[in-house]
C-alpha cells in the first residue's frame, strides 16, 4: 500500500480572490480619451479654478511633453498609450457637488459600505474622519464640522482651491515641483481631486484622517493630489486606502502626495494599498506610479511613512523625506506583497540636509507566485548634515520557487560624521517551517499566515490600531487560496 497524499506547495497558497473587484453601475460624465491642452483647460474650467492654477497645470503639461517615460525600474509592462486614457470621470449625480452627506448618491454610499467604509458619520469608527474619492472626484468628507472646531481643514483639494486659495498656492508644488518626474508632471497637469489637510500651529488633530480612493470607471486614469501641511508644533495621523474593480484592462494611477512639516510638527502617513492586482496570468490590474514626498522643513519635525502594499499589477513608488530642518526625523516602514504576476519596485529616499537629522527605514518584501519585487532606496547625507544617522533594515521573504526579490540600496555620504547602518536578509518560507507548524497541529495555510504576519510585525506595529487589524486581514485574504 502506498501513501496517497496530495502534496501542496507553499506557492499554491497565494492565489487569491480580490474582494473589492465589483463595479458600481453609475452614470458618469467622462471626457473622451486623449490628452492635450484643451483637456486640461476643460478640467480646470469644470473645477472653476483660478488662472494661476490653470497656468501651473499647463506649464507642467508642456514640461511633461518634453520628458520620456522612465524605464530604470525593475518592472516590465507594455508601453502605455497616454492618448487612450480618459483624464476626467465624475459620477453625474456629483457634478454640482453634494452640500452634505444627505445629498450623496445612495449608490455611492453603498459602494463604500461594501468596501467596509461607511460614510454615514454615526456608523463609522468614532475618531476617524473620511474623505472618499471616486474616480476623479471627492464624493464625501465626514466630520468636517468637528474638525473645523479644532481649526483643522480636511477637504477635497478642489474645494481647498476654492475656499483657501492662498494656502494652496503657497504650498502646492513646493515639495514635488510640477516637472519633478514624468508621472508627477502628468499628475500636475491633469490632477482632478485628492485631499487637502491643514493643521494649524500647536493643534493636535483630534481624530485620524482618512482618504479612501476608488477607481470605478473604465479606461480612466486616477490622478489624485494630496497636500498636507502641519504647522509649528502640530500633529496629524492620516491614512489612505485604495481599491478598484476587477477589469481586464490595465488602469493608470499616478498620484502625487506632498507633505510639509514645520518646526516641531509631526505627520504620520499610512497607506493600505489594495488596487486590483490583475489575475494570475497578469491580465488587468492597476499601474500604480506614485510620487510621495515629505519636506521636513522645520527643526525637530518628524514624518513617518507606513505602507502596506498588496495590490496593483505594477508598483513604482518611493515615499521620501527631505530632512531639511535640524534634528528632523524621517521614517519609512513598508510591507509589500507581490504575488501572481505582480511587480513592485518600491522603497524610499532619505535626504539628510539639516544637522543631527535621523532616518529609519524598515522594508519587508514578500514575494509569492511569480511576483517580482525590488527594494530601491537612497540615503543621501549632504555636506551640511553634521551628525546625521540612518538605520536601514531590508528583509525579503520568498514563498515558492518562481518569485524574485531584489535589493538596490544607494548610499551617498558627503559628511564624515554620519552614522550609517544597513541590515538585509532574504529568507524563504521553508517546507521545514511549515512541517514544524503542522506537527504542532496548525494547518499549512494558517502556518503561512502566521509566518508572514510574524515577518511583517515590525511594520504593522506602526499602523494605527484599527488599520493594523485591517492590514493583518488583508494579508491573510491576499495569501488565501488553493488549500485542499
Amino acid at each position, binding site marked *: *500500500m502506498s501513501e496517497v*497524499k496530495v502534496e501542496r506547495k507553499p506557492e499554491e497558497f497565494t492565489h487569491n480572490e480580490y474582494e473589492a473587484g465589483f463595479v458600481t453601475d453609475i452614470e458618469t460624465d467622462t471626457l473622451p480619451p486623449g490628452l492635450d491642452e484643451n483637456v486640461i483647460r476643460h478640467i480646470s474650467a469644470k473645477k472653476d479654478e483660478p488662472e494661476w492654477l490653470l497656468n501651473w497645470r499647463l506649464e507642467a503639461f508642456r514640461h511633461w511633453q518634453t520628458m520620456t517615460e522612465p524605464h530604470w525600474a525593475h518592472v516590465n509592462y507594455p508601453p502605455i498609450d497616454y492618448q487612450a486614457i480618459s483624464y476626467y470621470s465624475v459620477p453625474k449625480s456629483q457634478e454640482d457637488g453634494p452640500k452634505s452627506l444627505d445629498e450623496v448618491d445612495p449608490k455611492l454610499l453603498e459602494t463604500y459600505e461594501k468596501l467596509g467604509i461607511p460614510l454615514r458619520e454615526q456608523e463609522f469608527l468614532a475618531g476617524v474622519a473620511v474623505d472618499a474619492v471616486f474616480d476623479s472626484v471627492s464624493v464625501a468628507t465626514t466630520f468636517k464640522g468637528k474638525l473645523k472646531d479644532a481649526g483643522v481643514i480636511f477637504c477635497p483639494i478642489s474645494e481647498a482651491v476654492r475656499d483657501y486659495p492662498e494656502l494652496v498656492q503657497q504650498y502646492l508644488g513646493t515639495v514635488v515641483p510640477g516637472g519633478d518626474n514624468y508621472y508627477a508632471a502628468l499628475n500636475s497637469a491633469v490632477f482632478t481631486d485628492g485631499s487637502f489637510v491643514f493643521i494649524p500651529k500647536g493643534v493636535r488633530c483630534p481624530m485620524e484622517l482618512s482618504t479612501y480612493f476608488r477607481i470605478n470607471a473604465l479606461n480612466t486614469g486616477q490622478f489624485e493630489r494630496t497636500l498636507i501641511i502641519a504647522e509649528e508644533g502640530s500633529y496629524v495621523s492620516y491614512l489612505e486606502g485604495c481599491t478598484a474593480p476587477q477589469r481586464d484592462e490595465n488602469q493608470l494611477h499616478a498620484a502625487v502626495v506632498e507633505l510639509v512639516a514645520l518646526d516641531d510638527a509631526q505627520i504620520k502617513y499610512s497607506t493600505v494599498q489594495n488596487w486590483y492586482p490583475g489575475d494570475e496570468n497578469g491580465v488587468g490590474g492597476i499601474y500604480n506610479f506614485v510620487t510621495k514626498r515629505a519636506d521636513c522643513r522645520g527643526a525637530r519635525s518628524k514624518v513617518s511613512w507606513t505602507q502596506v502594499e498588496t495590490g496593483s499589477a505594477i508598483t513604482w513608488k518611493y515615499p521620501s523625506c527631505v530632512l531639511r530642518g535640524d534634528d528632523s526625523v524621517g521614517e519609512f516602514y513598508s510591507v509589500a506583497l507581490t504575488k501572481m504576476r505582480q511587480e513592485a519596485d518600491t522603497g524610499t529616499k532619505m535626504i539628510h540636509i539639516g544637522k543631527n537629522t535621523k532616518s529609519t527605514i524598515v522594508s519587508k518584501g514578500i514575494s509569492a507566485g511569480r511576483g517580482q519585487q525590488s527594494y530601491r532606496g537612497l540615503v543621501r547625507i549632504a555636506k551640511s548634515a553634521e551628525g546625521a544617522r540612518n538605520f536601514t533594515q531590508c528583509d525579503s521573504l520568498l514563498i515558492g520557487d518562481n518569485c524574485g526579490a531584489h535589493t538596490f540600496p544607494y548610499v551617498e555620504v558627503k559628511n564624515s560624521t554620519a552614522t550609517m547602518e544597513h541590515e538585509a536578509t532574504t529568507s524563504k518560507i521553508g*517546507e521545514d517551517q511549515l*512541517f*514544524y507548524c503542522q506537527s*504542532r*497541529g*496548525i494547518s499549512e495555510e494558517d502556518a503561512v499566515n502566521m509566518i508572514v504576519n*510574524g515577518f511583517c510585525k515590525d511594520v504593522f506595529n506602526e499602523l494605527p490600531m484599527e488599520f493594523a487589524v485591517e492590514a493583518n486581514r488583508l494579508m491573510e485574504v491576499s495569501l488565501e487560496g488553493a488549500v485542499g
Partner: protein
Amino acid sequence: MLKIENLHASVGGKAILKGINLEIGTGEVHAIMGPNGSGKSTLSNIIAGRDGYEVTQGSITYKGKDLLAMNPEERAWEGVFLAFQYPVEIPGVNNTYLLKAGVNAKRTHQELEELDAMDFLKIVKEKAKLVELDQSFLSRGVNEGFSGGEKKRNEIFQMAVLEPSLALLDETDSGLDIDALRIVANGVNHLRSEERSVVMVTHYQRLLDYIQPDVVHVLADGKILKTGDKSLALELEERGYDWVREEAAA
C-alpha cells in the same frame, strides 16, 4: 496505540526502510537504537507525516486508524507529537502564540471550547517550570536565537503543553550537556503515564540512564534486528552494533 506492519519506505528512489514491524502498547516507553543511517529518523518522520518519503509497502495503524491517510496536522490533533532532532527557527512567530494555535486547533478538532489567553498562559507557565525554561522564552520567536540545548528543552516544553498520546523523541539527547540532559529527561519522565506512549530514537545508552525504557529495539539496515529489555541497551553500549547484525544474518 501504534502498530507498524511490514513498512517499506524510500527517499528519492533509495530504499531506507525495508520491512519494519513494531508494536507499541499504551503507556509503554520504547527506545529505538541503531547506527547512523539505519533509518531511525526516517521512521519518526514518516510517523509524524513529513513530505518527501515514499511509503512503498506496509501500513501504520494508530488508535485503530490508518495513520498514513492523515495529513500532519490531523495526526497532531489525534495526539501524535514529534520532538525534532533539529527544531527550525521561525523568526517573528511568538513561541506561545504558535502553541496556543496548535492547542486550540486540537481542541476544535475534539469539539472542545478554545482556551482563552489567560487560561492558556496559566498552563504554559506551569509547564515551562517543568523543563526549567525561563519565562522570557515564551514570548520569543519560535526557537529564534535559542542555543541547541534550549531548542531541545523547548521541544519537551511543547510536548508538555500539547499532551500527546504518542510522543516521538528524535535524538532529543544529541548535543545536550549533562545538566540539560537531566532537565529534558525529568520533563519526559514527568509526562510518563498509563495513557501515554513514548518512542525515543537515540544513538546512545546515556539517555536511557535517565529515562528507563520498557522495550529496546535495534534498527539497522532498515529493519528491526533485535528487540529486548533495557539490558540490551547496555549490551549495545559495550559491544557496539556489529554483533547484532551478525546474529541477524546467521
